[in-house]
C-alpha cells in the first residue's frame, strides 16, 4: 500500500493509505476510494451504500460549498494543488474546518512541497502526499519551523496576540 503523512493531535506519522484514488475514466475497485466531485455527485450515494469509506477530490476551481451537505458522510476531502503556487485550497481547507465543521481528513494532493507544510497544517490539512520526496522528518521540521504565529487559523495554536496576554 502507498504511504502518506498524517497529522493527528499535533503528531506527524507515516501511514499506509487505505484509499485508492480513482480517476473518472477508471472503474471503481473494491475498498475505500477517493473520487472526483462529479463522480461523487453521480455515484456517491450508491458507493457509500456498499459500506465503504468514500472521499472526494476537489479541484482548485471547484467550490467547496458544493460539498457542504455531504460532509458528514465523507471520510476524506482531498484538495488538489495543480501547481504549488495555486493557493485556493488553503481557503477551502479553512472553510471546511471553520465554517462547515468538517472533522474528517483533509488531504493535500498534487504539487505538494515541504515549503507549504506549515501553511497547510495551520489551515487544517491533516494528510499530505508530498510530491518532492520529503521524508516524514523533513515534513515535520518544515511544518514546525515557526515557534509563533501571528494569526488565528484552523489549527489549535494560540496566535501571538493571545500569547502576549498570557
Amino acid at each position, binding site marked *: 500500500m502507498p504511504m502518506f503523512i498524517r497529522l493527528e493531535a499535533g503528531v506527524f506519522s507515516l501511514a499506509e493509505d487505505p484509499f485508492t484514488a480513482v480517476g473518472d475514466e477508471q472503474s471503481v475497485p473494491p475498498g475505500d476510494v477517493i473520487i472526483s466531485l462529479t463522480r461523487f455527485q453521480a455515484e456517491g450515494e450508491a458507493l457509500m451504500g456498499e459500506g465503504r469509506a468514500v472521499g472526494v477530490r476537489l479541484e482548485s476551481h471547484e467550490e467547496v460549498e458544493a460539498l457542504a451537505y455531504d460532509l458528514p458522510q465523507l471520510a476524506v476531502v482531498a484538495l488538489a494543488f495543480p501547481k504549488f503556487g495555486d493557493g485556493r485550497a488553503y481557503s477551502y481547507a479553512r472553510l471546511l474546518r471553520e465554517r462547515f465543521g468538517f472533522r474528517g481528513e483533509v488531504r493535500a494532493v498534487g504539487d505538494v512541497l515541504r515549503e507549504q507544510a506549515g501553511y497547510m497544517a495551520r489551515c487544517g490539512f491533516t494528510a499530505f502526499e508530498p510530491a518532492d520526496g520529503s521524508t516524514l522528518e523533513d515534513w515535520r521540521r518544515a511544518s514546525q519551523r515557526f515557534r*509563533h504565529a*501571528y*494569526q*488565528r*487559523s484552523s489549527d489549535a495554536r494560540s496566535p501571538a496576540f493571545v500569547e502576549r496576554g498570557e
Partner: protein
Amino acid sequence: MYRYDSIDKDFLADRTAEFREQVARRLAGELSEDQFKPLRLRNGLYLQLHAYMLRIAVPYGSLNPTQLRKLAWIGRTYDKGYGHFTTRTNLQFHWIKLSDAPDIVDHLASVDMHAIQTSGNCIRNVTADPYAGATSEEIDDPRVWAEAIRQWSTVHPEFNWLPRKFKIAVTAAAKDRTAAKTHDIGLNLKRSRDGALGFEVMVGGGLGRMPYIGQTIRQFLPATRLLSYLEAILRVYNRHGRRDNIHKARIKVLVAALGREEFAAQVEAEWEKNGAGADLPDTELARIRGAFVPKSFETLPSVSETFEAARLRTPAFARFARNNLKPHKVAGYAIVEISLKAIGATPGDATSEQMEVVADLAERFGQNDIRVTHEQNLVLPHVRLDDVPAVWAALAEAGLATPNMNLVSDIIACPGLDYCALANARAISVAQHIAERFADPDRAELVGELKVKISGCINACGHHHVGHIGILGVDKKGEEFYQLTLGGSAAEDAAVGQALGPALPYDKVAEAVDTLVETYLRERQSGERFLDTFRRTGVAPFKEAVYADVH
C-alpha cells in the same frame, strides 16, 4: 518606532533559519530554480540583469538610526556602497551574491528588520503616511494600524499564495501621501459623527499594464474590525481572482469584472459569515500603540529666532525652508524633507555615507525617527525649528539638501534598463536629463508643484500613470521610445493620465517636458498647479506645443 518583543524577534530568527536552509538546498542543487524562485521572492531576493537584488522591507516607511546605520553597513559590506529607496518605501541593494543573502538577513534581524514578503504573490510591505505622528492633519496614528497589518499579513497561512502581489496603504489625513488609491487596498482612517474610529475601505487600485483607481467598497468600517474585514477581502480574492493569466490576476481585474457593488456584496457576505476571529483584542491594539517609542516635545514658541535669522542671512537656507519644511503638530517643530533627487543623481539612491549622516541627524536632532516616502525621499519628522539650520548645513555637506520637494526635479523613476530584466528603456537617465533642464532653482520654484513619474516598461514601477507628467519607456524595433501622459495623480484626487500623442525618441523627452512646462506657464491662471491647468484646458494646448516642436 515600534519596538519588537521577544515573539517578534523569535519570528525573525525562525524565518532567517528557514531561508538559510533554502539557500543551502539551492546551492547544493536540491531545489530547482523553479522551486526556489517563489521562496527567494518571499524573502525579497530577485534575479536581475547583473546580480541578485535584495529588497528590504521598511514597514510603513519607518526607521530608527540604528537600522539606517545597519543598512549603510550592509551597503558598504555586501554591495557597492549605496542603496535604492523604492516607491513602496523599501530599500533595494542591486549587487548581492546569493551566498551572502542569508548572512545579510541575519544582520537585518539583529536590528529588527527583514525582507519578508517584499516580493512574490503575497501581501507586501504596508505603506503609511510618512508624516504619521507629526502632522496635525491626522485623525489617528496610522502606524499602529499598519503594524497590526504587518503582523497579521506576515506568513499568513491562507494568503501566502495569492493570484498576484497585494499591496495595502493606510492614511489618516485628508491629504493622501501614500497613493492609497493606487493600492490593492487603501485604508483611510476617519471618525464617525459620534467620534468612533473607522476606515473608509478602497479596493482595486493598481498601476501596471491596466491602471485602475481604487473604489470605495465601505464608507466606514469600525477600526477594531479591520483584520477580519481584510481577511474577507483577501479570501474573496484568493478564491476568485484569476490565475490563468498573470496580467489579469491582480484584484483590480476581479473588482472591475464583478463591478464594485457585487464585489462589495461578496466581501460583506464573507465577512458576516467569518466572524471576528481575526480581529485583535483591544488589549493587543493598546500594546502595539504603547510599543511605539513615545516622543517628548518641549514647549517652544512657534517662532524660532535662530531659524528666522538663518532664513534672512542665507538665501539657500530660505529656499530649503520654503520647499522642504512642512508644519509640525507641535509649535516650534518642523517636518524636514530630505530629497534623494539631487540634480543629476539617480532618484531614490543614497550612499552609505549619506545614510549615516541622516542617522546621525535623526539621533542628534530628530528624536531617533526617520521615514521613507513613496516618492523616494526621506523625512525627519520631528526637528526643532531652532535646529533646522544645523540640520540643513549637515545635509548640504552630504549632498542631501536639494530644495526641490514636489518640484519638477523631484522625479519618481524605476531602475529601468540600467538594472531591471523587465525594462524596455532607461528611466534613470531620462530623469537626470529632465532634472538638469530644471537645475535653475528659481525656475523650478516658479513652476511649482509638478510630479514627473517615469517607468521603463508597462509594469509601471515608476507610477507613470499617476504622474502629472507620466513617461513610459517602450521598445520600438530595438530603440527606446517614450510615451507621455498628462493629468494623472496619485493623491486624494487620484486619476490616470491621458496620452499626449505619439511616443518620442529618447533624446527628445527632456525637451518635450520643457515645452509642456512652458505651455503651462503660458496658460496658467492664478494659483493653478500644472495639474489644475491641465484639468481646465485639456490636452490640446500641450499636444499642439510638443508636436509643433518635435516635427
